[in-house]
């Protein structure tokens, strides 16, 4: 025999039961329970919507409930700006730049050069180790 699962027994409120009636329950009971389930489901959906709305506002508040003196206030523009610059800083840190800075040598002079010889280069073989 199937047992009737009611909304009160559901541990995950985000997933309301769609078909809670069992085939063994009477029609009257089914109607009553279905109605109850429907009301509870609607309430939960609204609750979730409300929670989502508040969640989206959470970033605008500065909260700290970790200490014995909890702190809760609306963020001012500076805090929001600081957050933004942190994001920008992160972006900057992760970009590569290809900037060429031509710097002069520490000392430059002209010397007279006498070419002693011009010759074709000779190969000097470096034999590998450990092969």
């Amino acid at each position: 025999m199937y047992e009737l699962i009611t909304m009160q027994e559901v541990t995950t409120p985000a997933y309301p039961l769609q078909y809670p009636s069992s085939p063994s329950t009477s029609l009257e009971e089914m109607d009553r329970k279905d109605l109850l389930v429907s009301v509870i489901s609607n309430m939960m959906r609204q609750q979730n919507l409300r929670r989502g709305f508040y969640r989206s506002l959470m970033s605008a508040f500065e909260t700290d409930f970790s200490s014995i003196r909890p702190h809760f206030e609306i963020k001012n523009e500076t805090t929001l700006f600081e957050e933004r610059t942190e994001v920008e800083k992160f972006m900057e840190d992760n970009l590569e730049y290809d900037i060429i800075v031509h710097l002069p040598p520490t000392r430059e002079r002209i010397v007279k050069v006498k070419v002693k010889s011009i010759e074709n280069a000779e190969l000097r073989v470096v034999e590998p180790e450990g092969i």
Partner: protein
Amino acid sequence: MVEHPWYEVVKSDEVLQGDFIKGCPVIIPPPEISDSEDVDVKVKNYDVVVMSQSCDIAQRKIDLVLICPVWPLRKFEEKSSFFKGKDGKEALRRGNVHGYHLLNKCEIDGFETDYLVVDFHNIYAIPLDFLITLVQKKEPRLRLLPPYREHLSQAFARFFMRVGLPVDIPPFKK
């Protein structure tokens, strides 16, 4: 089947990575240069391949261009018993000899070469303007084509970035 030729012949002022320049003069200074005296220098001519990145050359982001000497494989065979044998040449072909990179023969009419070996042990830098003037005066030259060009560049990077460990992990016996 798609063909991937190793080389092409170019006659252009544009210098790219993988361009071969024959008889490129490299100035060898004396061990010491004093202020008062004239400087005696040697000039050695090398057949070289351009190692600097093409984009750095094209956008003139560098003043000096890196070049490495290129030798025909038979020179290695003449000078070294290791490379004379099959094992040495096979190690070279497999890319297991750090500091040297083997390139294929060129069979283009008038530009035939032996297998070529690029020597990463001796890297020279020559002024870009000097190199451009040099290629303008020279005859058409060979150019290494992708992906062999990038393969050469990768081999150079591998040679340059290698790290010698003071204490290595001993080889496994079983």
